[in-house]
């Protein structure tokens, strides 16, 4: 299934991640996952929350530059080669991956990977054809 994610533009300056977290906290929005890469000048913070549409709204009101986009969440076997097999199939199917990150969940038997792909339709076709297990809605 598709997982909605928010992306926030952050300048690389002290306290900005904290400011972001505070806006969510003040509005009682629970963070499910978050990832951020470090660059010299700016960063894009990517997060999944329990209520993305509300998060986008309150963050915008607080002056953040925010957008949301869809990722594909898949489950892969938690063993060596588990991810490689899936990526291979997507590659053969002509799907480019812009980025991905793993989503940690306690007591899980399977690893959950969030994929941002070039073409969602195409990716979903590959996934269905190869019966790759996608994330259940209820997990998040």
């Amino acid at each position, binding site marked *: 299934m598709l997982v909605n994610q928010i*992306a*926030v*533009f*952050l*300048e690389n*300056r002290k306290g*900005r991640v904290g400011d972001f977290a505070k806006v969510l906290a003040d509005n009682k929005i629970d963070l499910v996952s978050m990832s951020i*890469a470090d*660059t010299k*000048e*700016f960063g*894009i913070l990517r997060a999944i929350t329990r209520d993305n549409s509300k998060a986008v709204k309150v963050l915008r009101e607080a*002056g*953040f*530059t*925010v*957008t949301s*986009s869809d990722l594909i969440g898949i489950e892969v076997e938690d063993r060596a080669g588990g991810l490689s097999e899936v990526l291979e199939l997507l590659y053969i199917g002509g799907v480019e991956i*812009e*980025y991905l990150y793993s989503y940690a969940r306690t007591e899980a038997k399977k690893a959950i990977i969030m994929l*941002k792909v070039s073409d969602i339709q195409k990716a979903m076709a590959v996934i269905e054809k190869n019966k790759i297990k996608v994330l259940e809605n209820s997990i998040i």
Partner: protein
Amino acid sequence: MFFDSKIEQMGREEMRALQLERLKKIVKYAYERVPFYKKKFDEIGLKPEDIQTLEDISKIPYTTKTDLRDNYPYGLLAVPMDDIVRVHASSGTSGKPTVVAYTKNDLDMWSDCVARLIVAAGGKKSDVVQISFGYGLFTGALGLHQGWEKVGASVIPASSGNTERQVMLMKDLGATALVATPSYGLYISEVMEKMGIKKEDLKLRIGLFGSEASSPEMHKELQDKLGVFPTDNYGLSEIIGPGVSGECEYKCGMHINEDHFYPEIIDRETLMPVADGEWGELVITTLTKEGLPMLRYRTKDITRLITDKCKCGRTTTRMDRIQGRSDDMLIIRGVNVFPSQIEGVLMSIPEIGGNYEIVVERIGHLDKLTINVEVKEVTLLDNYSKLEDLIRKVRQKLKVVLQIDAVVKLVEPQSLKRFEGKAKRVTDLRKI
């Protein structure tokens, strides 16, 4: 030493008589040949014959950079293009440059003027001069180049950039004189230090620094680090380029080539002439220029005129070090930059917001221009490369318009100050 002692030591009365004779002539010339001037005169019922004394010059309307822009590129020329032998250009307030053009006589007059100030600064025929100004449309490099050739010196047209090579050339070719912006001169000294080259390894003895304002402190540093006797000189392309005025060995103001450039100082609010010796905006009338005569051109540079006798023996009026500008033009690494040019570029890029900030700093001795812009288009947040592409795009477009490289920073919207009324977009942190 004088290049032209007859003019440079001319008695004041005689000089004023020469100026008046030339003023009458150029006013008539401009009126008859340039429709722009005719229209301006006719609108206020002024006739060339109304100019009978030097004081009558105040009856003539001002000319501004906007007039040059409105008549881009050749609208203010007083001669057919066939008589033009050289064209130069500088940055304008809009995307278009300010174009200036010279006849053969203009080039001769120009190189004479530059030669005078080179000699006043201590330049000699025996000098080997390295010109570290960027060659091209900019008047600085070729202006000094021609002047030094007129003096008879050996000229090395090194242009700017590739500083290690500059140092090597200076050393190997035995340069005795350096022409550069003061900040580039200081940068050269830093590079020398890194290369392990001492001023004693060079033969430099004088430095002519111009094209941007400098302070006595900078001159002291140039003297200490390069072993040169530094002088300041002044000019602007609309008038001629470098060669309007320059310091002599006594460094007590820049001697103006008054037989060609008639200076006035006006109050920048009222636009009325100020009392003798008061500070204000410099206005120049070209008394002899054929290609592009300028009547009462507002330079926007703030200075004052000094008329007491100079120890060097020159009788010409001097102008003080430039104290600033009455418009928002920035001079960055010797290049004219208008915030409106930057704004024009930013507005042409839909992915960024209308809010921006221009920061000018001096890092070491070099000017650094940083432009902070907001990301408006949120779909770019999908990935880093899109944002990096955006930065590259803004940078390239700025480079095309400004001719200099700027650092472009993407910032969060709220981090830029919101302005009410007149926006203050420029923060100049340089201390000159």
